[in-house]
Structures are given as structure tokens and as C-alpha cells.
């Protein structure tokens, strides 16, 4: 290790310029997979001693949080092994929300307070139980209350986290028909009578809506009763 560092510090003529070293560093960094010395040699000034250069670079990085690793004759940057406590490869990547979940979420956002039946009516397809679960788990959708209508269906709405995640100050910041049209998200052909609802102010209960209670949730099997494990 010491000899490598000596190589790096020397001001004696090297087999590579600073420019070559910086370029090699950038090339390895930007590459999606480990790069071979031959590949590097093609992209560095003629006559560059790539092996020597890479060793010097490796020495530079030896004590950093990022190391230059050699795998056979290929090179790659990796976070230092002793920091693996902080960085693991095996964890789940953040998941992309499915198309169905996006649609349901958007309907809840625009049409809230909205019941499940109404969501299905708007989408024209049944919503699978999992979709709502995902949105609840993400913390973007909540039970708001119950509609004062036969069966007293539960109404759904969005949460504060929803606004935070999507960069909205309030739910009324959602763009309306004209703006969706203007942005090219809705095409010009819109049937007469087509409208996009203006969501109510946050936290405002609709006239035909009662706030939801813990008891409601348990009764509906939406929340496991404290103690038992009813699988609704």
C-alpha cells in the first residue's frame, strides 16, 4: 500500500497525466459495469500505463468511504466494505405504484370523499382488495367517514403524507380540467358534460358524511379488533 501511495505522491515523471487519471476515474464511475483496462486504454491518451494509473487511483481511494476495486482485470467503484452496515444491496427498492393503484389513488384524491362503489363506478372495473391496502400502507389514503346513505358506506380520502409526497400544499392545488387539457394530459376531444371534480378543502366533512370512529372500523372488519384477528 505504501508503495502505491508513494507512486501517487511523487512528482517524478509518471506514465500518465493528471488528465488521464481524472478521465479514468470518471469513466469507471459512470460505467454501469466494471470496466476492463483495455477498454480504458482505448479512451485514455496513447501510451498511458493503465495498470499503473489504476493502482495509483486505487491508493487514492484506499481510505475513503468509496474504494476502487479490481475484479480480475476489471475495475469498479464500490462503497467501502466496512460501511456495509449502512449500505446493503439486498433490500427492496422502492416500488413503483401499479397503474391500477395510481388510478384508484387519483380518483380518491379528486373525488373524495368517495366510496369504494363509486371508485368502481368511475373506473368501470372492480378494485382488488390489495390495491387499497397498498395505498393505505403507503400512508396516502385514509378512511374519512361514513356516507349517510343506505348501508352507510365508508368514505375514503387522502392524507397529509399524500400531499407531502406529491408536492401539493393543499388538495385544491390539484389541476382542474382546463389545466389537464392545457398540459396535454387530456386530449382535445372531450365529450360535453365531462367534468373533473374540485376536491373539498382538506379535513372538511361533506354534508352527507359522518366522521368515522374506531368502532366503525372494527365493525366493518377494516381494522382488526384489538385482540382478535379477524381476516375480513
Amino acid at each position, binding site marked *: 500500500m505504501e508503495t502505491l501511495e508513494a507512486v501517487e505522491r511523487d512528482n517524478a515523471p509518471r506514465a500518465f497525466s493528471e488528465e488521464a487519471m481524472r478521465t479514468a476515474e*470518471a469513466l469507471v*464511475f*459512470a*460505467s*454501469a*459495469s466494471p470496466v476492463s483496462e483495455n477498454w480504458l486504454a482505448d479512451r485514455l491518451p496513447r501510451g498511458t500505463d493503465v495498470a499503473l494509473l489504476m493502482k495509483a487511483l486505487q491508493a487514492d481511494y484506499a481510505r475513503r468511504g468509496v474504494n476502487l476495486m479490481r475484479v480480475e482485470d476489471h475495475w*469498479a*467503484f*464500490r*462503497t467501502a466494505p466496512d460501511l456495509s452496515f*449502512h*449500505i*446493503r*444491496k439486498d*433490500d*427492496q*427498492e*422502492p*416500488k*413503483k*405504484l401499479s*397503474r391500477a393503484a*395510481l*388510478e384508484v*389513488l*387519483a*380518483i380518491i*384524491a*379528486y373525488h373524495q370523499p368517495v366510496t369504494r362503489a363509486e371508485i368502481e363506478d*368511475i*373506473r*368501470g372495473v372492480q378494485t382488488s382488495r390489495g390495491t387499497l391496502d*397498498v395505498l393505505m*400502507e*403507503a400512508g396516502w389514503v385514509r378512511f374519512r367517514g361514513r356516507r349517510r346513505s343506505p348501508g352507510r358506506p365508508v368514505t375514503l380520502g387522502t392524507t397529509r403524507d399524500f400531499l407531502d*409526497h*406529491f*408536492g*401539493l400544499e393543499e388538495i385544491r392545488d*390539484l*389541476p382542474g380540467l382546463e389545466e*389537464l387539457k392545457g*398540459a396535454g*394530459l*387530456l*386530449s382535445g*376531444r*372531450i*365529450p*360535453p358534460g*365531462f367534468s*373533473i371534480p374540485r376536491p373539498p378543502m382538506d379535513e372538511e366533512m361533506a354534508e352527507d358524511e359522518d366522521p368515522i370512529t374506531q368502532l366503525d372500523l372494527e365493525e366493518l372488519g377494516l381494522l382488526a379488533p384489538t385482540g382478535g384477528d379477524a381476516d375480513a
Partner: protein
Amino acid sequence: MAEPGSIPMDKLWGEEPVADRGESEPALVIDVGGFEGPLDLLLHLARSQKVDLARISVLALVEQYLEFIESARRVRLELAADYLVMAAWLAYLKSRLLIPQQKNSEEPSGEEMAATLAFRLKRLEAMREAASRLTGRSRLGVDVFSRGAPEHIPEKAGMAFEASLYDLLSAYAAMRQKQAVTQVTIARRDVWSLADAREILLRLFGSDIGWTSLDRYLNRYLTAPEDRVTALASAFAASLELVREGKLEIRQAEAYGDILMRSGSGRPIGERQEGNDGNA
């Protein structure tokens, strides 16, 4: 006096301006020989005067523009409304520049209007330059690169979901549109709809040009002779609606006289009971 026609029209439509117009844009681009709207055309005309934008001869510019529009009409080129609205505005500007300002007139003087025009041209040009300076920067994915083989860092919380507002809105819009199945096909109109007329009036009077005769400017530039009746009817009907919303004011000195319009206070009529600010 200005020298109308100092720009050969053929040249404007010819290869020259088209050449530097960059990539094409689908559909709705209003394209008169490759110009992107009336301001773009005016900017081009102004540049060909080869002087500082702040010192262009506005009158000459107006003449050139109006002549351009006339030529387009002669060859029955269909011009987008934006160009015609601008023509009407410029024709009005020209009249204001030529006729001395009346004392204590509420309307902006010709010079003020000319300054507005020069300002808008300058501002558009500034934005063009800004755009090219932006693209001249070192750009990520072009000149500068991010880590090619990112490593994942676990979130503290269990499951994380990703979606952008754009994802959300485009999913919603596409789904609603798909669900709104309709067989209605709308026949192409050759009359002005109320909505068209309203849009055009708003554009024209949005720039606060003072009392303007509907017949003189609107009709002359906005319509072909055969459409005048429908245009007048729609424009008039739309104007009444706009008056009610406070966006427009109308006056007519005598029966069958010119109908004059100008932009309104912006307050709907119902809300104006207190503090009448002396509007005619």
C-alpha cells in the same frame, strides 16, 4: 415614412426562415412559413431592421406585419387566430400612432402601446437567449454523468412506494378519458362558436388597448367576408357574457353606431355595487 414591403414576402415564406426552425413539433403548431406565432414573426421582422430592439421603428414594423397578413390573405392562406388578433391590435396601434392623443383620454397613447410591443419583443428575445444558454450548459446524461452502477441504500421504514404527481395525473386523465366513451363526433364548424369568439375577444382585449370598434378591427382582420355575419353575431353574444363577468366594457354612442369595446375592471357586475370607480 415607413417603407412597406421592404421584406420580400416570398422570402419570408421561403426556405430561409424555415431553415433555422429546429425540430418539428406535432400537430398544433401554428405555422406560417415556420413562424411560431405572431410575436415570433414580429421579432423576425424587427431583426431585419437590424437595429436595437428598443429602437425599432414600430410603425414600420406594423406596416410590414399588416402587409404580411394581407399577402397571406390574398393567397387565401388560412391564418391562425393569434396572427389575426395581433393584426387587429397592430392596426389599432397604427391608428393611435398616427392620430394625435386626445387630452385626458383614458386610453393608452400610441407610444405606450408601442412601448408595450417593444417590451414584449425584447422579453421574448431574452427568453430565447436564456433557452440557448441553458442548453449550452454541461448537461447530465450528455456531458456529465451520474454513478453508473448505483448501490441501494435501504430505507428505514419497510416498504416504500414511488410515484410522481405526473404519474398520478396522467393515469387519472387517461382513465377518465377512456371511461368517457362517447360516439359524439363534432362536425367542423365554419362559423365562430361562442367559445371561439370569447377566446378571441379575451386575447384581443386582454392587452388593454382601449376603446376599439368591433367592426373596424375585429371584422377586418379576423374574418373572411363571408363569415362576417356569424363572427359578428358570436362576438357580440360572447361580449355580453364578458361584460357581465366584468372582463369587457361596451358602449355605443347611437343606434347603429360603432360598437366600441375595451377591457373591463375584472370584477363581475354583481360585485360592483360599492365603489363605482367611474367606469362609463
